[in-house]
C-alpha cells in the first residue's frame, strides 16, 4: 500500500513537472493572481489573531500581546453604535444589490438588443466611464450637482419654485444619494458580465422565435432572461458573500456628522477605531465578525440556491 502510494505520488509530481515545463507561460500567468491572493488575502489570516489579543503596538509584535479571548468582540457588539452599524451596512449592501443588479441586467439587455452599432458603442463607453473615476472625483461631481447653495439639481428645484434640499447632510436623502450614485458609477461595469453571457446565447433561438412571431419583449422574456439567469444567480451569491462590504470609499468621501446616523457603516467605524484610535484589536474583531457572517451567508444562500434552482457556486 505504502509503495503504491509513493509510486502514485512520484507519478503525480513528475506529471506536474512535465506539465509545468510544457505550459510554463500559462503557469506564470496563473502565478500572478495566486501570489496576489496568497499575500493579500491569506497571509493576513495569520494576523486575525489580533482580534483575540490586547494588541497595543506593531512594534512589540503580536506574539507579545496578551490573549483577551472574546473581549474585543464583546466590546464591538455592546458598543453604542453596533446595531446602527449593522443596519446601515445591510441597508447599503442590500439597497445596492436591489438597485444596481436589475439596472445592470436591463442595461446589458438593452445594449445587446440595440441594433445601431455606433449608438451601442457610445452608450457602452458612457456607461463604463464612471467606473474608472475615483470616489474623490465623484464627490466633486456630486457636490457640484447636489450642493444646497449652488448645486445644479438645487438650482433646478429653485427654478421650479421648490425649496433646496441638502442631499449630502439630509438623513432622508443621503441613503438614496449613496445607492443611486453607486448604481450610476458601477452599473456599466457590472453589465459586462451579463453582456458576455448574452453573447453566448445561440442565435438560432432568436431566429426560430422570430419565425414563430415572437416580439422583442417575448424574446427577452423567454430566451434572453432564462439564458442569463444562472449568471444573475452567481453574481447575486457572490454579492451576498460580501454583504457587509457596503462601500467604504464611497461612504467615507460622502458622509459627515449630520448623517452619521444613516451613513456610518462597519468599515468607517473600523477605520476610526483602528487607524485613528489605534485600537487594532477592536477593529480586527469587527472585521473578522464581518467576514465570518459574510461566509455563513454565502454558504446558506448557496445551499438554498442549489435546493430551489439549478444554479449554485459550489
Amino acid at each position, binding site marked *: 500500500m505504502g509503495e503504491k502510494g509513493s509510486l502514485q505520488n512520484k507519478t503525480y509530481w513528475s506529471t506536474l513537472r512535465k506539465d509545468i515545463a510544457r505550459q510554463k507561460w500559462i503557469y506564470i500567468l496563473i502565478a500572478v493572481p495566486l501570489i496576489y491572493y496568497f499575500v493579500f488575502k491569506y497571509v493576513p489570516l495569520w494576523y486575525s489573531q489580533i482580534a483575540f489579543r490586547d494588541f497595543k503596538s506593531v512594534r512589540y*509584535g503580536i506574539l507579545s500581546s496578551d490573549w483577551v479571548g472574546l473581549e474585543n468582540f464583546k466590546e464591538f457588539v455592546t458598543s453604542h453604535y453596533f446595531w446602527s452599524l449593522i443596519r446601515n451596512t445591510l441597508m447599503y449592501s442590500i439597497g445596492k444589490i436591489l438597485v444596481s443588479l436589475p439596472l445592470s441586467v436591463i442595461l446589458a439587455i438593452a445594449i445587446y438588443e440595440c441594433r445601431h452599432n455606433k449608438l451601442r458603442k457610445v452608450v457602452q463607453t458612457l456607461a463604463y466611464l464612471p467606473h474608472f473615476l475615483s470616489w474623490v472625483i465623484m464627490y466633486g461631481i456630486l457636490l457640484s450637482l447636489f450642493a*444646497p447653495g449652488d448645486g445644479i439639481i438645487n438650482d433646478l428645484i429653485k427654478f421650479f419654485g421648490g425649496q433646496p434640499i*441638502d442631499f449630502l447632510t439630509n438623513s432622508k436623502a443621503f441613503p438614496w444619494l449613496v445607492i443611486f450614485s453607486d448604481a450610476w458609477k458601477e452599473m456599466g461595469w457590472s453589465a459586462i458580465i451579463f453582456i458576455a453571457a448574452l453573447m453566448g446565447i445561440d442565435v438560432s433561438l432568436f431566429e426560430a422565435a422570430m419565425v414563430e412571431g415572437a416580439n422583442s419583449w417575448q424574446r427577452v422574456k423567454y430566451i434572453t432572461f432564462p439564458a442569463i439567469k444562472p449568471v444573475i444567480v452567481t453574481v447575486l451569491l457572490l454579492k451576498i458573500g460580501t454583504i457587509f462590504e457596503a462601500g467604504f470609499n464611497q461612504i467615507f468621501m460622502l458622509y459627515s456628522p*449630520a448623517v452619521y446616523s444613516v451613513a456610518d457603516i462597519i468599515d468607517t467605524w473600523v477605520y476610526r477605531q483602528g487607524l485613528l484610535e*489605534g485600537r487594532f484589536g477592536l477593529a480586527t474583531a469587527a472585521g473578522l465578525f464581518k467576514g465570518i457572517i459574510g461566509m455563513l451567508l454565502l454558504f446558506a444562500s448557496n445551499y438554498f440556491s442549489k435546493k430551489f434552482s439549478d444554479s449554485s457556486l459550489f
Partner: protein
Amino acid sequence: MKTRKFLAILLVLLIGFGQVFAGGSSDKKASDNGLTHIEMWYNATQTEVGPLPNDWVGYDILKDMGIELEASSLPSSTVDQDTKVQAAAAANELPDFFVANREVWVRLANNGMLADVTDLYELMPERTAIMFDQDAINFTTIDGRSYGFATPSIVTKNEGLVIRKDWLDNLGLEVPTTLDELFDVMYAFTYNDPDGNGKNDTWGYGAFIEETTYESYPGRRFEPLMGAFGVEGTWNFSKDNFGLQIHKPEFYDFMVFMKKVIDAGVIDPNWMAYKKDDFRAAWKQGKFGIMREQNSALSSQNNYAPFDANFPDGEWLVIEPPYGPNGLRSVGPAVRGLRIWCISADAADAGKAEKICEMFEWMAHDEGYLLCGWGQEGINYTFDENGIPVSIPGDMGFDGPIGQTYIQLRSMAFNYTSETELLSRYPVYTCENSGKEMSALWTLRDMQSKTWTPANGMDSMPIPGNDLKTYYQQGLAEFFAGARELTPENWQAFIDQLDALGATEWEQEGYEYAVANNYLY
C-alpha cells in the same frame, strides 16, 4: 495525507510570509557610506508648490555633518497628515523623525512607538533656549518623561472675525457690535443684494467644519459666535466654572442662535459640505460677507490676488467679535499652537537620536536657520537696509514659484514670534488690480488686538474616545440639520446620552489634568 501535507505547507508559508510582509521594513540602520540615514516627514511651508528639491544645498551641509537626510512632505491637510502618520504607525513604518499633531502623538506615545527625548534637550542648547520652555516640555510629557519636541507652528491669535466693508457701505450699515446686530447684517447681506449685481446669490455668514483638539464641533469657524455666549473652545478654563462647554446651559443658547441663523438662511448652506479649499474659493467669489479667517489666508499677496481681481472695490475689515446677551465676546480660545516633532522608538534604538538632535539644532540658528527660513543668500534672498531678509525678484526668490520650494522646511526653523520673521514673511505689497497697499502683518496685528480667551494648555487636554466624539459631532449636526428638533427636552436627552457614553468621565479626567498643570485661571 496529501491534504494534510498541503495544509502544513500552507501554514508554514503563512507564518513565514506573515512575518515578512506584515512586519514591514523597519530597517533603521545607518547607511553603508558611513553616514547616518535619517528619514524625515515634514509639513511643507507651501503646500501649493513642489517638495524640497534634491539640489537643496542643506543636503550637502548635512552630509558633512555625517547625516544623509531623506525628507518627504506630509499631505497639506491636518486630517490627511494624521491619517498618513497613523497608517505608518499601524504598519510599523514610522519614519525616524516626523511631525505630529498632539492627538496622534498621544496615541503613538501610549503605544510605545516614540523615543523618550527627556535627556536630549541638552544636546540642543540654542533651540531649547528659543523654543522649549517648561510649557512646551509639559506639552509632550507623560509620567514625567518627554516623548517629543513641541515647536511653535503658527503665529498665535492669527485669525479674526472679518466682514465685507464694501457691502456694509453699499447697504448703509454700521459694523455690528452685538449678536443681534450681527444677525441683522447677515440678513441684509443675504437678502438685500449687497454686491448690487441684481441676483440673490450672497449669504451673510460663511464657514466650514474645522475641528481641533480644543475646538470641538462645529469648530473654529464658529468660535466668534460661541464666544458671544461664553462657550468658545471645548473647555471652560475658568476656576469657578471649569468644564466641558457643551455641559454649560449657555451652549444651548448658542445652539438656539445657530438654529436661527440656519433657519433664516443667512449662512452659506454649503457650510456642512465645504472643505477648506471650497470655503476659501467661496469667499474669493464673493459668496458671503462675514467669516472667521486666518491672516495669511486672507491677505497675503497670493491668497488675496483672486479676490482683488474679482472685487477691486472689495475690502475685508477685521472686527471685534459681537457681544452676547451676557456681555461676553471672544474670537476664540488662544493657544500657543504647538506641533510635535517626534523621534520614532526604532530610530532611537538604531542610535540615530543624537544625529537627529544635531540636525534639529543646526536648523535653529545661524546657517541652518537662514537656509531653512529663506534659502541661500544672493539666490533666494538678500538683506534689506534694516537687516530683514527680503525675496530676490524672480522665480528663485523665496516667494517665487521655484524659490518657495527651497524653504519648505521653514516651520522647522521659525519660532513664529520674532519681528524679523514676521516682517520678512508678510511684506507690504501693492494689489495688482485695485492698487491698494496691503500686508498680512497689518491684518495679523489687527487680529491679535481683538478679544481672545486665554487657553494656554487647552490643546493638550485629554481627548475623547471615538464613540463619544462621534456622538458629540453627530448630535450637534443633527440639531443643525433639523433631523432632531432643538427643544430643551431633546437637548437634555442628548446630553444624558453623551454622559452615558463617557462625557462625565472625560470632564473629570480633564479637570484633574488641568489642575495638575495649573491651566485654570
